């Protein structure tokens, strides 16, 4: 079947702008000057014969001379005393955790090379997001401090210790406060170390503050239930989810955990059982969560409260004043309320706002819906965000008043991420001794008196408790690379306790955590976690004065309502800016805009037209006495009259990769009723100049072919085959080639478009596993990004009542507001076609087919004609224009011997002039097979897991052997929803996609 929907990757494609049409013709961004060279004029003028011969002669001579050196002598240096657990060539895995996510760290010959989710962490499902997978690179970051510093000069630890202890003693004897300012600390041993310091110096206070604050929820829960906590959410128990500006699949609280739970009601297994949840999203900027919603309504930030008031009214039948006036939203709310009330006990409303009143109203709604217990768990609450904006205000006031004698900063960088950096620096100038545990002289640390660089989590002993009752271990996988010391050890030493940190963590576990679990310290080191929480939370009901809340909400909304409203958000890629120096993350395209290496002002295309700004335009955004000029992104789905800007960019002192990338948006934030809020009134104006963002959205485009298949849940229930449109069902095919036999294994993949949220952790996992180089902003602009796996994001227009789906209708429609778009994410990688078009055009047989159904790429055979890339219908082949990993022009991160230790030793680093593409992690396939052979058994399903599959929390990527009828992938591919992209050209791809199913209202 031919889908009647028109899918497009960017506005330029939708509108078929001349520049887009021109650029989409060629495989590569810059044309190759073949014509110039070949026509006669070219030969006589541009490259005359004599010059050519000179160059040839020189080249030949140079090559001959270069070839004259002797074969280098390679040294083989074995261990002096080999550690018992190390066998060179075989990886070791250590259970550890990152930000509370239980992970496995893979090390080779003692150096960590990748991080994957802990597959045994049953019960507490937490995957790995892009930042976790990329964090292994931070260990090898050359921008880190190599020694402790006092006054900007390297010193010995002993000197620093003496200075600190002296300062602490002085402060304590003067009765002044000793403040430890940190982001949320949920690690039991860190807290124990802080307690040690408090015991020694009783004036110690611990202030927790998060760059992206959740104080609003904490305060609301304190008021409603007397529990000042952030609850955990179990979306797997929710049939209906309404989210008001909460990016809960991405950045809101525990995105990965939410994704796993949420997808359980939407993936192919759930659909097979005829079950799918409904998700309604109200938001201003198009977030990743919004892109996955079944129904999405664009609203202004000032309408968030109003939407909730209307929703409350519709659910409870009350009539609070201040409901929403937006027509589209009203309709959606009526329908949503019906859904919610029909699913009492199985419905939940979440809101992203940090306003206490908004969260109080949400509590009232959820209480009315009976969501507390199964869905919202206040007993096994989340401990990931405990920061208190009020506490930090208090600290600033105390410091400014000269009551603070010593201030320590632990994982906290307020000079960068507090909205009034001047207040912080002024306050700190009144503090006698200031110190940061930052691993680099960042914005805050560089203004302080001392830096006691902490080791990374891969070099430290420690633990975390991201949830009540859930404890994960952090164990070192390598000795500290630089002269660093973990913060906990420093705190212990300063409190006069010389216990080794290993002993300290171990004792703390044995006495406080393991007691009563029947588990020993060694068990924990093996499994990586302990879960002591109860199965489900108990029910709570909120007691909220809704009238007072509603009027407070209305007042707050009036303060931000305006012609133009600004909304700050945390981007899925850069988060709060902590990992800004991670080149893998900088080059990971944003899930929606596909922008790399920058932040930007996202505005609606129609709004841009009104402002007179086009693509590559720049605007000046002013709000709260702060202004920045930013390039714009014309973002379909963005509410009219709103601007969205991501925080986490514009860092100045983070390192080579992250310095001066984008603009800092934190100063736009406001402090309202004691909490930091990210929405405000703003004014925008056109700024001069133009700026080209490094955006991958229309790179490697598939020429608008029919490659996305989408249906609705209602249609699916009637006919599971609906819209999958399998070409082979209706057409007879003829082959030019012989059929490929795969008598052993045949490796295939199934991708569930309904499960893929577009988060991109698979891309980073692929980069890390396969040594894929980061190329930098300029090269991305030239369409030269090297990602083997990309996630294509397609828009369709979906204009409420009048369905604007057909191409002709779109062309006729004149006044589009671009607010109503729906999005499909499609991971695209080498399809390992049985009749691969790339193979037939390679003149040197560098890419050939294997008997296991893989399309092999022999780098050492390739000499770079790039015919294969031209002939690939999926545009998944990548060309090495440079020696990216060893060329000073691309000095993002990898051009030093130290950082190169992160490379996977099982995969070749490709050199200039060579084509590369997804190998289906052939090194893992070969490894898995070898393991089976060594154990004298057949290969079992699940023995081989490819990197992208492992990183995917949503289980959207399923890989395996189709010759094994019982394998998960075989079962998945027998699903009715499966279709093959571009099946009609009969290249016989080996990756099946499952149709996107949307649970819309209309059906």
């Amino acid at each position, binding site marked *: 079947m031919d889908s009647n929907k028109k899918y497009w990757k960017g506005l330029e494609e939708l509108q078929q702008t001349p520049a887009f049409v021109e650029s989409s013709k060629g495989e590569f961004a810059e044309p190759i000057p073949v014509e110039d060279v070949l026509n006669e004029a070219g030969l006589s003028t541009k490259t005359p014969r004599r010059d050519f011969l000179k160059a040839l002669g020189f080249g030949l001579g140079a090559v001959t001379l270069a070839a004259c050196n002797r074969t280098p002598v390679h040294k*083989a240096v074995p261990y002096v005393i080999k550690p018992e657990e190390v066998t060179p060539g*075989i990886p070791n895995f250590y259970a550890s955790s990152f930000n509370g996510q239980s992970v496995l760290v893979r090390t080779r010959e003692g150096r960590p090379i990748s991080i994957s989710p802990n597959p045994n962490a049953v019960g507490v499902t937490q995957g790995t997001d892009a930042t976790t997978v990329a964090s292994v690179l931070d260990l090898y970051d050359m921008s880190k401090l190599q020694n402790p510093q006092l006054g900007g000069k390297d010193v010995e630890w002993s000197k620093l210790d003496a200075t600190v202890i002296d300062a602490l003693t002085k402060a304590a004897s003067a009765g002044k406060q000793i403040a430890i300012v940190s982001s949320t600390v949920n690690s039991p041993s860190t807290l124990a170390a802080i307690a040690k310091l408090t015991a020694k110096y009783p004036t110690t206070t611990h202030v927790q503050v998060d760059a992206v604050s959740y104080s609003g929820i904490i305060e609301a829960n304190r008021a409603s239930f007397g529990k000042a906590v952030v609850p955990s959410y179990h979306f797997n128990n929710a049939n209906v989810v309404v989210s008001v500006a909460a990016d809960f699949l991405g950045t809101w609280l525990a995105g990965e955990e939410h994704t796993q739970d949420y997808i359980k009601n939407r993936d192919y297994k759930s659909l097979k059982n005829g079950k799918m949840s409904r998700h309604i999203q109200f938001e201003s900027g198009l977030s990743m969560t919004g892109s996955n919603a079944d129904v999405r309504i664009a609203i202004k930030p000032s309408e968030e409260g109003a939407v909730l008031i209307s929703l409350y009214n519709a659910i409870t039948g009350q009539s609070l004043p201040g409901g929403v006036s937006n027509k589209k939203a009203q309709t959606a709310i009526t329908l949503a309320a019906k859904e919610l009330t029909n699913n009492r006990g199985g419905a939940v409303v979440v809101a992203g706002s940090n306003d206490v009143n908004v969260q109080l109203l949400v509590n009232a709604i959820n209480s009315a819906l009976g969501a507390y217990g199964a869905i919202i768990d206040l007993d096994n609450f989340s401990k990931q965000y405990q920061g208190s904006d009020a506490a930090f205000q208090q600290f600033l006031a105390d410091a400014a008043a000269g009551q603070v004698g010593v201030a320590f900063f632990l994982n906290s960088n307020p000079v960068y991420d507090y909205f009034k950096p001047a207040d912080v620096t002024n306050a700190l100038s009144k503090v006698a001794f200031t110190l940061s545990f930052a691993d680099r002289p960042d914005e805050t640390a560089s203004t302080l008196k001392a830096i006691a660089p902490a080791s990374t989590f891969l070099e430290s002993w420690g633990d975390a408790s991201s949830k009540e009752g859930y404890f994960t271990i952090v164990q070192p996988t390598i000795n500290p690379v630089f002269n660093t010391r973990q913060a906990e050890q420093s705190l212990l030493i300063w409190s006069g306790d010389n216990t080794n940190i290993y002993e300290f963590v171990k004792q703390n576990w044995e006495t406080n955590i393991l007691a009563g679990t029947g588990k020993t310290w060694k068990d924990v080191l093996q499994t990586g976690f302990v879960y002591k929480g109860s199965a489900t939370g108990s029910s709570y009901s909120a007691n909220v004065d809704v009238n007072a809340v509603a009027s407070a909400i209305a007042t707050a909304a009036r303060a931000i309502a305006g012609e133009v409203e600004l909304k700050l958000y945390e981007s899925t890629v850069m988060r709060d800016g902590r990992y800004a120096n991670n080149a893998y993350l900088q080059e990971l395209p944003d899930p929606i805009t596909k922008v790399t290496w920058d932040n930007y002002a996202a505005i609606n295309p129609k709004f841009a037209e009104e402002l007179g700004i086009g693509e590559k335009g720049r605007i000046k955004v002013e709000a709260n006495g702060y202004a920045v000029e930013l390039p714009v992104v014309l973002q379909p789905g963005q509410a009219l009259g709103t601007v969205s800007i991501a925080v986490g960019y514009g860092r100045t002192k983070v390192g080579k990769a992250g310095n001066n990338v984008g603009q800092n948006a934190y100063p736009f934030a406001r402090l309202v009723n004691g909490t930091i809020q990210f929405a405000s009134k703003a004014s925008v104006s056109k700024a001069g100049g133009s700026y080209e963002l490094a955006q991958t959205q229309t790179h490697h485009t598939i020429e608008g072919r029919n490659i996305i298949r989408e249906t609705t849940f209602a249609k699916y229930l009637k006919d599971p085959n609906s819209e999958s449109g399998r070409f082979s069902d209706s057409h007879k095919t003829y082959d030019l080639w012989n059929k490929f036999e795969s008598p052993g294994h045949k490796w295939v993949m199934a991708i569930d478009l309904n499960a893929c949220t577009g988060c991109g952790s698979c891309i980073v996992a692929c980069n890390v596993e396969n040594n894929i180089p980061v190329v930098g902003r300029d090269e991305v602009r030239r369409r030269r990004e090297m990602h083997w796996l990309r996630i294509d994001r397609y828009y369709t227009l979906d204009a409420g009542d009048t369905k604007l789906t057909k191409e002709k209708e779109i062309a006729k429609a004149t006044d589009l507001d671009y607010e109503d778009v729906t999005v499909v994410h499609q991971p695209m990688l080498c399809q390992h076609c049985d009749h691969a078009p790339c193979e037939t055009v390679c003149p040197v047989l560098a890419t050939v087919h294997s008997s296991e159904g893989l399309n092999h790429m022999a780098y050492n055979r390739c000499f770079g004609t790039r015919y294969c890339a031209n002939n690939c219908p999926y545009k998944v082949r990548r060309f090495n224009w440079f020696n990216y990993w060893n060329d000073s022009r691309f000095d993002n991160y990898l051009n030093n011997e130290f950082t190169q230790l992160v490379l996977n030793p099982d995969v070749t680093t490709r050199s200039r002039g060579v084509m590369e593409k997804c190998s289906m992690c052939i090194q893992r396939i070969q490894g898995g097979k070898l393991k089976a*052979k060594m154990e004298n058994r057949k290969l079992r399903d699940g023995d081989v897991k490819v990197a992208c599959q492992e990183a995917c929390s949503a289980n959207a990527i399923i890989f395996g052997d189709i010759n094994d009828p019982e394998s998960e992938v075989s079962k998945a591919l027998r699903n009715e929803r499966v279709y093959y992209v571009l099946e009609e050209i009969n290249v016989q791809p080996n990756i099946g996609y499952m149709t996107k199913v949307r649970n819309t209202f209309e059906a």
Partner: protein
Amino acid sequence: MRNISSVLGRLAKTMSVGLMLLFAVTMAHAQDVKEGETLFKSKCTTCHGVTKKVVGPALAGMSERHSEEWLVKWIHNSQAMVAAGDPAAVQIFEEYNKMVMTSFTDLSEDQIKSIIAYVKAEETKAAEAPAGGGAEGGAGAKSGDASTMMIVGLIAIVVLAVVVIVVLNRVIRTLEKVIANNQAAIAEAQARNEQFEESKFAKFAKAFVKNKKLVGFAVLMLVAFLAVLGWNTMWNVGVHQGYQPVQPIKFSHQIHAGVNQIECQYCHGGAFKSKNASIPSANVCMNCHNTVTASDHYDGEISPEIAKIYRAVDYNPETREYGDNPKPIEWVRIHNLPDFAYFNHSQHVVVAGVECQTCHGPVETMEEVYQYSPLTMKWCVDCHRTTAVNADNAYYDQLIEAHEKLKKGEKMTAAMIGGLECGKCHY
């Protein structure tokens, strides 16, 4: 040079040993000492030296410390004496960390006495050696003689060279005089010679040049020869078959794997588990070499090669303690595969059951290891084409079943199951 000096050194050593023996004969019965030497070397050297403490005490002076009767009893069964509470026995037992000395009940009293006699002879020799005038050129000067020889040799060569130059100068001057005197005669002789040459060689050359076919053929042959030479050279670029670099330690596989029959796996365990065969870490060497010092070949000194291991692990053989300043041994890698080729030892050794020698050659006979196989892709592929897959491995069941259906009777080679595909080795 080194060879000559070592030969001289040995000679001197033999002489000195001879002298010592002669001297020793006067002290004890020759028969006893000789028998004692054989017994000492076969039974005692693992743990004892004459003048050096090894595992057990140095034996020199034991006759003074203990009576012969006591010694015989001790050697027969030391533990019995300790158990009986003999004070001297207990003291030694305590001193050496309660290490139990092997009981030699099979040795007769006479044999033990022979050993004691031998030790006595040796200790006297050792005591004499530094002062002994006769042995001066022997063991004592052993380390010095190499450099002396070198210096003397060098001086000799310089003197010889000067003499040769002087003599040659003389000859040249004389010849010049002769030439000056006989210019005319020479010219005449030359003319005569040329005529003679012309008549023979030139004629042949002219005929050769005139015959175009012959010239063409010769040129063709030359071109063909150069082409073949070039072709072969090009194909052998990067092929290092026979590569035998000098290693930091003169390790002999012939002694370890050949004579002593140590399994390959003992040191290269990685070959059975991993892609790397792995060179053993120095602690593996120390498993044996903390007792095996080969000092009997080096005049009681620790073998200089084994001493290198001690330096690597920072081990002091006197105190038997390890320091904390180890230095890894930097071996020179012999088998170098390019980075883009993936090779896994365990796949070949464990799964396919290939003998180490198939690729590495008769290592057990190699004094120094060299690259036996060419390690070219052709060499890999040839083997994959002819080698049958190990059908006993359950992993291959499915493939063998599929294969049976297609080609009955033929063996299933690695090539048939994809052993020649690019991606199996290049990724």
